[in-house]
């Protein structure tokens, strides 16, 4: 396991980032911190995908200097997936932020626990 971990250190970093983002999204009480966690988590997956799509010594698949050999370029699909993923994650973050704004306007706090308590108090 040790040598593998060292040679794949960038993937390991992506996974550590994923766990950091994931636990922030789940455990933080502050809504903004949750959204930051969400973005860290998504970016970690994109980092992972990008790493998997990159081959050292090759360039993006745009023909330069007439070189047409497949061996000179990387597969464009992982990068395409990352772009699609970024679009998705931006829209989800926007939705979460707009929800946060609405909640803050109504309850004047960003703490989800506090919001639940105030909601319960309103009901009674």
């Amino acid at each position, binding site marked *: 396991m040790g040598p593998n971990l060292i040679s794949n250190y960038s993937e390991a970093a992506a996974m550590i980032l*994923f766990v950091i983002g994931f636990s922030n999204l789940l455990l933080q009480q502050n809504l903004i911190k949750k959204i930051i966690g969400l973005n860290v988590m998504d970016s970690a997956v994109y980092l*992972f995908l990008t790493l998997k799509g990159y081959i050292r010594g090759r360039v993006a698949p745009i023909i330069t200097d007439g070189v047409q050999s497949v061996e000179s370029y990387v597969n464009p*699909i992982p990068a395409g997936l990352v772009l699609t993923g970024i679009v998705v994650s931006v829209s989800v973050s926007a939705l979460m932020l707009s929800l946060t704004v609405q*909640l803050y306007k*109504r309850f004047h706090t960003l703490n989800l626990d506090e919001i639940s308590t105030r*909601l319960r108090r309103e009901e009674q």
Partner: protein
Amino acid sequence: MDFIRNFPFFSIMLSMFSGIVTSMLPKRAAKWLNAVMISVVSVLSLILMIYLNRTGGHFIYLMGHFPAPYGNEIRAGVLEAMMAAFFSVIMLLSVLGGHKKLDEEVDEDRHNLYYILVDMMLSSLLALVYTNDLFTAYVFVEINTISACGMIMIRRTGKTYVAAVRYMIMSLVGSGLLLLGISMLYDITGHLLMSDIKRQITLIAASGRYHVPLQVTITLICVGLAIKSALFPFHAWLPDAYGYSTISSAAILSSLVSKGYIFLLIKIIYRVVGYDAFYMTGILNVFFVFGLTGMITGSIRAIRENDIRRMIAYSSIAQVGYIYMGFGLANQIGMEASIFQILAHGATKSLLFIAAIGLTDVSGFSRKFADLTGAGYRNRIAGIGFLVGSLSMVGVPMFSGFISKLLFAEAGILSEGKAIPTLVVLAISVILNAIYFMKTCIRIYTPANYMYYASDNLQFRNELLYGITMIGFIAVNLILGCLSQPFLDMIHAGLGTFS
């Protein structure tokens, strides 16, 4: 008949484009465009289902005539067509049944937005059902989540905002895991198309390499989808989301959204990983245990609830538990029972939600059981609807719930070593279902002082459209309960083409 092959593509595009057009229409026109669009999609899907059932095959449709990996693929078999038809029919009934309530609860200027969300939801559900590409599935899972969240928060109250934020957080956790799983699967196999991934996985499994990464990947995908479909113990977001959103949203969320994810999981089990490789991971046993626990806990929470909408919501947790238990039985009948349960629960739960709103509206808008006394007399069609839904949930013959429970019992007996827990928990769960649903039925048919509520808003009483949707729901339930064999044959044939 080649033209019929375009129908899945037409259905998805039709719902997407009607969403775009809706944004420019006046409110009334938006409502009718929405109803017409969902009806057209239902008819197209039904024609496709009948066609595929007759010819007994399935087909791959190349989007834009580009082969993968440049283009995208749609795969349609009889099971997919049946699911698409079912989803669109239930969505039509749910939207029509709750439109009066939408007028009351949602601001005038946001009605078009609601119909856009419904269109977006339908297109994403259809795409999840038909797609043959794993990354497309992920994108539509997110679109589904966004539209579901919008449908919850369209009613602007503090409770719905909190419910929406909780729903979003759990859903995003689920999609994060799903995305990571898909990325790792792409890394291991080098493909995104379901059939290509399966071919590679078979080779990898035969070579004995990558055992651990494959196991981790499959686990990530399963946990992600289980969170999104509210399998116990990931159900915490569910009661508020179903309980406080506007009624059409609650009906659509409970009967369609979670089922879309479960159908995607079925596709992943059969068409991406392959049943044998999936069986080897042992996740089916985990599903079995969580399914059984969910069946009991969901029902117990429902019994303790004093709010009719939340009671129905908790019952959903138990019903989702049934579906995962069916997966866990690890035989063909169990899987077929689970798919039938998707249909039975979808038809019944939306009926119960729409009926419940008819009952609460003639009881001074109260959802408490004490106030619902005699509501079945004040709104007869809603009372009958609730009764039919309850009988189906409990598993009385002639209704859809009976068939699925019968199939679960049969699958349980045939499974190795799981027969006793399955039958015992099934029996306990039926008794618990009977306790809370029959309690409600007795309550709504206990005569109360009618005059007490005479001043209340009785608009649903004479509402023709509401009555028609109730009759539609009851008909779907009776058709599934009394004429189940053709559906079971189609499920069997569809699963056969999956593997």
